[in-house]
């Protein structure tokens, strides 16, 4: 197997007495989409900044695209694309000028670059906006431009810090389609997000809580490990009173209202759809329909955060 695209070994960063990133280790293979999840302030951006050579690690090592971030940050910077959390292009300049500037910043020039700039404009569906002033464009288009500026130099690794914050769902879907295409062509993607539905697009997910990487696996494996129980979606009438009678019975882990119905989390050994329907009906509910639901990453996230600190381990 070739060298991983990103490798972090016992990476830590301290700001004064605050440990923003605490002993984080992971590796990301070439062409993988690696999602980095966590609440605000969990240490996601700090990790990205260390990996991009923007922030020196307090302890530990990291290699990105084959270069050490401590000893060769310049080589790291030349091989990566970075889209920061805050939109940071030049709003007073036209779209095309932003592309040209960032191309120049990466040392690109000449006819090859002109062709590449056109290609990126086409890829990011910006051909009609090329002369528009960036500040006049809506968030979704700006975000495509930011992405375009980050991939101009065909980076081996692309870092995206909350790339879809404030972008509408349709644009988000387009964005992810594009990201997956980039990954298929061999670009390694490291993305932070707090949209848990988006994390499903990732090959693997790392979960950050308070600076520590507490879980790391594929979305499916994480669900299996942290939500081993059955999730059931229930519809029917008079559910509210019947649900109250279920609470506290052995094997019933959670009962949550969900739309007009209920979401139940139950121990798989003790309950199934039929027994739940039966119990609810006998407690007074009518027209009960029970469907087995899929656990979401949100369930995983809540389960991980609910764990006591000592029990968390990657």
């Amino acid at each position, binding site marked *: 197997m070739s060298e991983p695209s990103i490798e972090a070994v016992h990476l830590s960063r301290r700001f004064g007495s605050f440990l923003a990133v605490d002993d984080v280790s992971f590796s990301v293979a070439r062409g993988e989409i690696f999602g980095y999840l966590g609440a605000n302030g969990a240490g996601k951006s700090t990790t990205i900044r260390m990996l991009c050579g*923007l922030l020196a690690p307090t302890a530990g090592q990291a290699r990105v695209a084959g270069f050490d971030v401590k000893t060769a940050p310049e080589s790291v910077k030349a091989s990566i694309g970075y889209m920061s959390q805050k*939109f*940071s292009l030049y709003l007073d300049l036209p779209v095309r*000028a932003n592309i040209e500037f960032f191309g*120049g*910043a*990466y*040392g690109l020039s000449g006819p090859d670059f002109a062709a590449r700039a056109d290609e990126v404009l086409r890829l990011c569906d910006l051909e009609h906006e090329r002369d528009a002033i960036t500040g006049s464009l809506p968030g979704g288009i700006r975000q495509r431009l930011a992405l375009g500026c980050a991939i101009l130099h065909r980076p081996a690794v692309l870092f995206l810090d909350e790339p879809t914050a404030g972008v509408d769902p349709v644009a988000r879907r387009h964005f992810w389609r594009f990201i997956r295409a980039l990954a298929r062509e061999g670009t390694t993607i490291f993305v932070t997000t707090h949209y848990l539905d988006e994390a499903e697009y990732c090959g693997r997910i790392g979960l950050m809580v308070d600076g520590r990487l507490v879980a790391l696996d594929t979305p499916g494996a994480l669900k299996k490990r942290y939500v081993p129980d059955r999730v059931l979606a229930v519809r029917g009438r008079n559910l509210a009173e019947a649900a109250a009678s279920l609470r506290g019975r052995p094997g019933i882990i959670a009962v949550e209202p969900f739309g007009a119905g209920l979401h139940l989390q139950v121990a798989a050994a003790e309950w199934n759809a039929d027994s739940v329907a039966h119990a609810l009906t006998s407690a007074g509910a009518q027209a009960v329909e029970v469907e087995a639901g899929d656990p979401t990453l949100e369930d995983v996230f809540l389960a991980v955060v609910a764990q006591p600190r000592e029990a968390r381990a990657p």
Partner: protein
Amino acid sequence: MNRPERFLVRVGAMASKEVMHIRRDPRTLYMALAMPVVMLLIFGFGVSFDMDHIPLVVLDGDRSDASRSLIRAVSAGHEFQIAADSDEATALRMIRRGQALAALAIPTNYERDLAAGRDGEVQLIVDGADGVVANQILSKIDGLVRAESLRRIDVAAEPPLQVKVFTLFNPEARSALFMVPGLAVYLLAVAAVLLTALTVSGEWERGSMEQLFASPVGRLEIVLGKLLPYLGLGMLQLLLVVAVGAVIFDVPIRGSTPLLFFVGFLFLVGMLGQGLFISVIARSQLVATQAGALSSLLPSLLLSGMLVPIENMPRILQALSSVIPARYFVHAMRGIMLKGTGLTILWTDLVALTIFALAILILATARFRRRLA
């Protein structure tokens, strides 16, 4: 592509982006080009240290031929204008209200005393609130009264001692000639420091500095890319100010014009470096603007020798002024424009400006950390 080539591409990208920012922001252009010209016109026309038609109250207690002759002598020229012929109370009231700046009191018996061969004593009451004004009034009155005395003793012959004055370089004592070179320095300093301080701190505020740091653009490339466009703008500004001075105020360039622009170039690099240094440290546009204005405006106005001669300053301020680049530029500008001085005399100014420019640029680049936090 090899390293130097990439270096040039990056500097070029930074610089042409900056040019686009400037072209799209009329405020920058106004600040750089229109403001200095407007200020030059206001100061050039408006600020004159040469006073005439000074309002004077006359208190003639004698009402004699002699007293009238003195009053005539004082008011005959364009220096003084009789604002009133009145009593002491009125004179004091008028001075307090600013309707008059001085009062000339001639006592009763003035003519009799003179005729008897005693001293004729007249009194001058001066508004001393503005020292410069008061000094001018004193010297003007002194001259006029001296002439009147000479006339009275009726010396047909020349007085035994006479000073013949030849004023070099600015014989008509025109303030414009004295002001324009100084003003040019002041305006260049303020605009150059403010413009760079704003543009770099703007990148911090916008978050684009982080984006730049994540790219392979080096700090020297950022510094040069920021500097070059404003250097061009500054040279244009200097050209404009010198041209306005020459065309409208008849300010000559008696020395070498290339030397003038070369000194201007050195001075501008230093001022741009100062703005850069401020914005590297301040990181916020508000702080950078204030620090930029303070550090350029006050020293170049007060410590450069533009308004107050450096020789008149307390020793500590004289020492302080030796690290103010505007001091050397003012000296060089006046030398080149008014006296036609060349390198043999001005080389010290050139050396001082070069040292400052290099030092501040090295300092700014060194303090410019390409890491966050």
